[in-house]
């Protein structure tokens, strides 16, 4: 009798398809097999198709002569350069427009975001209107607008718009005076470095003194004076080794100075205005996310309005602002690839566009282009994660 009961109570092993662990393993094996089969199929087809069409594979084409010119190059480049050079030129142009775009978009975005929270009703409404208008219009349309409708309507070089005969704006581009550095100008750079080092030391010393004695020190203004004053004094001391190269009309076009091509101008304006609308919203929500109790507490401690802002609100708001801000920077970098639509020679235009058409090596070219953007994304997200860990709220 007892043995019978015992027998009944022995746990029966469920069939393996009811065991969640077994099921997980089975499912993963199926998925993995599917993915591998998919890739095998694709790679097989691709190799077959490439052979059929007589397209060579591999990265040897990077050493072949490109044979086309590029309208804006930051490094030495001409028709006889290789496709590898083309890649570098495109990459640098992408980085240039992204860096400048990030700079302008941040300045504009912070201004608009703070204006959005202004006590002044009119300013707040204007900022809101700016955000709602530019956020809801496709970026490509904005780029086209600035390029085809605004910059194309500028006068010819002979009727350029001039600002004091220093800056000229016309159909061919924007012409700015270019600085020409003298022989000893590097000393100014050294002075700037020294000033930077001194400021850092000053900051640590001020913190040390604050912790020790409770006395504050105007670090910011002193450091600012140091950063501007020291290089400037050096500059004067070594006899102002700086001259300007002014653009001047010679024949049909301007020579000298820095020429900014209209493609770059249009792209920069559109990218900055578009991204600034998003940054403004991020700044607004960041500042609003700081609980009003924090402000009240700061006032109760006797801090003034600007100190409250600087010491209490902004540090806490930045924690909310920085992550989405970085992703906007990333978006801007990726969106700069729209350059190809107006012919700004960025990576996508010269490499995934012209180079791909000339060589036909679609797989390699698209892969390299994507790899560049992926690398930038990964670098920025690594940086982001590091920052996040640093500022994460330590809770009880």
């Amino acid at each position: 009798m007892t043995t019978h009961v015992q027998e009944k109570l022995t746990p029966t092993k469920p069939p393996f398809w009811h065991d969640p662990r077994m099921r997980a393993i089975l499912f993963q094996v199926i998925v993995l097999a599917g993915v591998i089969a998919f890739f095998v199929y694709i790679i097989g087809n691709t190799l077959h198709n490439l052979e059929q069409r007589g397209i060579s594979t591999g990265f040897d084409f990077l050493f072949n002569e490109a044979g086309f010119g590029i309208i804006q190059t930051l490094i030495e480049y001409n028709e006889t350069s290789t496709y590898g050079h083309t890649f570098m030129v495109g990459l640098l142009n992408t980085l240039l427009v992204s860096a400048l775009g990030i700079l302008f978009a941040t300045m504009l975005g912070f201004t608009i975001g703070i204006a959005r929270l202004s006590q002044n009703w009119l300013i707040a409404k204007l900022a809101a209107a700016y955000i709602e208008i530019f956020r809801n219009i496709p970026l490509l349309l904005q780029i086209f607008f600035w390029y085809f409708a605004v910059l194309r309507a500028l006068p010819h070089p002979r009727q350029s718009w001039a600002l004091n005969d220093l800056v000229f704006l016309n159909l061919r581009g924007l012409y700015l005076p270019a600085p020409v550095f003298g022989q000893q100008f590097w000393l100014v750079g050294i002075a700037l470095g020294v000033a930077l080092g001194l400021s850092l030391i000053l900051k640590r010393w001020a913190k040390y003194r604050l912790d020790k004695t409770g006395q504050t020190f105007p670090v910011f203004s002193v450091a600012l004076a140091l950063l501007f004053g020291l290089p400037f004094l050096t500059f004067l001391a070594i006899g102002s080794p700086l001259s300007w190269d002014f653009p001047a009309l010679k024949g049909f076009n301007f020579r000298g100075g820095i020429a900014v091509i209209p493609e770059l101008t249009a792209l920069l304006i559109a990218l900055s205005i578009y991204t600034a609308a998003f940054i403004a919203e991020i700044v607004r929500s960041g500042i609003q996310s700081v609980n009003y109790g924090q402000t009240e507490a700061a006032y109760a401690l006797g801090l003034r309005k600007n100190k409250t802002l600087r010491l209490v609100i902004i540090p806490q708001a930045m924690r909310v602002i920085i992550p989405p801000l970085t992703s906007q920077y990333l978006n801007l970098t990726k969106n700069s690839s729209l350059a190809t639509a107006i012919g700004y020679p960025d990576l996508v235009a010269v490499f995934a566009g012209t180079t791909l058409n000339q060589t036909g090596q679609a797989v390699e070219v698209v892969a390299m282009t994507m790899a560049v953007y992926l690398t930038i994304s990964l670098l920025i997200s690594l940086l982001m994660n590091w920052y996040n860990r640093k500022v994460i709220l330590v809770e009880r």
Partner: protein
Amino acid sequence: MTAYKPSPNLSPPIASVGVLGWLRKNLFSSVFNTILTFFSLYLLYLLIPPIVQWGLINADWVGESREACSSGGACWVFVNVRFSQFIYGFYPSEAYWRVNLAFILLALLVIALLIDHFPKKHWIGIFTLVGYPIIAFYLLYGGAFGLEVVETYQWGGLMLTLVLAVIGIVLSLPIGILLALGRRADNMPIVKSLCIVFIEFWRGVPLITVLFMASVMLPLFLAEGVNFDKLLRALIGIVLFESAYMAEVVRGGLQAIPKGQYEAAESLGLGYWQSTLLIILPQALKLVIPGIVNTFIALFKDTTLVLIIGLFDLLAVVQSAFADPEWLGYAVEGYVFVAVIYWLFCFSMSRYSQRLEEKLHTGHKRN
């Protein structure tokens, strides 16, 4: 003994109530604010009158050709004449009713879904997702029920933009949900890492390179003789790209669901799919509706990029229209027209998401 009679309250100072009070408080509260106010007024004065003058007062509205544009303002005649091309692309004009019908039907379904407490709502939802696409396909493409086939290269204008956006939205959401679930599947490391790689890859590259890939590499990937049409290739690119973004939005919602919900579902004896479909997803999706709508808005704006691979969406049609020598020099009018259309769509979507956010925001709210 006289009873205590309080004297009447003094009326507030005249400068602190009414219009005057409002002005003082909101526009002239300090010297700096006063300067800002005047600066903004000046800015508005610089912007608004010329725009109104150009766009409305001096504009020409009706006519047949550019000769009708003589007032010096905006030439809306251009938009007027090309209107049907902007909307339908190169779709044969005798078949416009098919496009109209398809989109009116869609609009009715969407409106029915947006109204609270509309009767039989979930049946309408199922019909929109299952029945409607089939009807729309036969209406737009034809090939059955006596409708003539209209090849996709004839599609264009606003109609193509809407087709791309609607299909992109409808397909990217379920794929995104699956990817998000996969990314959260801690008991399946291989599936999890595949999902992470997929999501991070598509999020790390610009849409243009994805479209380039779809248009030049996809034909290489397929077996010989199999050929996708251009629209389908662009759609594949868009769906892959947007589903990665959608996955991240949905993941945010999944992460916000407290662990107790999972445990409660498990203790009721629900399996993975039951608890996911009945307990987790309804709550998680509700949380991230604003995020989903924002992704929709981004997708809608991103559809303009298809012009780079040679599809004629709204922007591309307008762009090519003013390359026509007949209408040279009316680029601004064309761009303003396109901008207004996009703006209306995106703005109404974002307003809807804000309203939802307020409606769903049942927690504590402090200002």
